[in-house]
């Protein structure tokens, strides 16, 4: 049996009394798409921090592509193939869109001068912002910033892409655009872990879903199974999952 692409082995992370992860084990295979839901403050973004290397766990191991990366910082993990976007896009505002992506291609992608330019251009093409390549990133609107955030992550040549609420704050047609971008990226074999409040966006892409709450995962299966799980519905009560959404998802999964 081949080892999974990403593996969290009994990871624990606490901030004072706030528990982000408690003895958490989790693995993602190459090319897989996993959605993570959970109420606000459940620690979803912090979980990404543990995977990308922004946060160090109190206990446990993180492995990626057969290597233990627990002690590596985020730059080193990026170079190994973990790409990440921020919930609130953080472009280098004084640099052009192209320069933003170029830095990622040269650093994270470890490309030389000659190879980095076409790689950066390709990342812009894939995310549909090639037309704004020479615009200072600080002048972009929200959708373009989110595209740039994904382009920058793609330029590092990831095997695993961590998407943190990329659909938040966007209109439905805009969400559809992003989902198609991510789908195309996944079709090339890049595994995707996607944290999202906009459940519609998630269910249209991911084949597997889980819910983070209280430092542990509740449910792990198809989106329909997880959203129908009474425990998931309980922690999500009052948020944007309602019965009709769940019915819709279950119906879609059942469809041929």
């Amino acid at each position, binding site marked *: 049996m081949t080892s999974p692409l990403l593996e969290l082995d009994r990871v624990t992370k606490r901030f004072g009394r706030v528990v982000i992860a408690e003895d958490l084990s989790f693995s993602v295979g190459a090319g897989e798409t996993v959605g993570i839901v959970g109420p606000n403050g459940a620690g979803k973004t912090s979980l990404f921090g543990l995977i990308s290397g922004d946060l160090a766990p109190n206990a446990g191991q993180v492995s990626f592509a057969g290597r233990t990366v627990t002690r590596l910082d985020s730059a080193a993990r990026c170079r190994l193939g973990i790409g990440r976007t921020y919930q609130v896009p953080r472009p280098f505002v004084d640099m052009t869109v192209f320069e933003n992506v170029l830095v990622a291609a040269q650093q*994270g992608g470890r490309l030389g001068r000659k190879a980095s330019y076409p790689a950066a251009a390709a990342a812009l093409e894939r995310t549909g912002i090639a037309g704004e390549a020479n615009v200072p990133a600080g002048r972009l609107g929200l959708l373009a910033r989110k595209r740039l955030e994904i382009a920058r992550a793609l330029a590092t040549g990831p095997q695993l892409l961590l998407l943190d609420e990329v659909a938040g704050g966007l209109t439905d047609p805009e969400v559809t655009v992003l989902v198609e971008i991510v789908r195309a990226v996944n079709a090339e074999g890049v595994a995707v872990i996607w944290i999202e409040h906009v459940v519609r966006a998630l269910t249209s892409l991911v084949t597997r879903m889980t819910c983070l709450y209280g430092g542990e995962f509740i449910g792990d299966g198809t989106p329909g199974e997880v959203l129908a799980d009474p425990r998931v519905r309980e922690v999500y009560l009052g948020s944007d999952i309602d019965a009709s959404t769940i019915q819709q998802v279950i119906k879609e999964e059942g469809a041929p």
Partner: protein
Amino acid sequence: MAWVNAIVQGLLTGGLYALFACGLSLLFGVMKVVNLAHGDLATVAGYIGVGIIAVTRVPVLWSIPIVVVLMAVLGYVLQRSLIQAAITRGELTTLIVTFGLSIIIENGLQQFFTANSRGLGVGDSFITSSFSIGSQVVIAWFNLAIFVLAVVVLLALQQFMTRSRYGRLIRAVADDREAAQLSGADYRHVFGIAAAIAFGTVAIAGICDGMITTISPTIGTDTILLFAFASVVIGGLGSLWGTLLGGVVLGVAQAIGAQINPAWEQLAGYLVFLLVLVIRPQGLTSRGAAA
């Protein structure tokens, strides 16, 4: 005409001040470190120059590239070790560490070189030769050369920051260190490069200062650091060309003050500095060249 001469002299001095200041501005812009030892680094560079010339007998101008390279290497090493360790412990720690570094440098220099002041290339004709415009404006060739050198250094820095791979990387890390790391950038290495540049530029300034006047172990904090701070604040924090503008404004203010009364040279400089702080605290160029 005496006034015109004062203004011209002040303007030329501004070039040297810009060389003092640009490294300070760069280090703060990139890693938010206020390097209190910055002035002493100029002094150290001057003394290294004195030492190299005494031992190897190279011409004084040849000592500049040698010292710049030595100081740049020292900058990288010091950044990756001492200053980086301080950064991870918080901004206040960097202040204390660089202040301590300043004290160590000054006392070390007094120990090895005594408190006597020294000059570089004393008596060399290219340092003392001058030309005059009209009857009263006398321009020393060497002062003019330093001003031109300052402009060249700033131009080169600007080109480096906007066009080169490492320049872009420095800008990215300066903008958002965490996001740069997520793009695969090793920020410690980037900090080291920025420090190497800052040490290199201040080394040029230190040797030039030793040639125009003299250096002594304590001028690093007595004058150089203060002039560098004033230039940075007047010109605008984080702007490369701002340091030149700030240096020129400071230099001209000092020259005019000295023209009124020789005792007012420093006072006039700091009055303008305070004036800028009150009227335009963000500096004259609130947003200029990258860095």
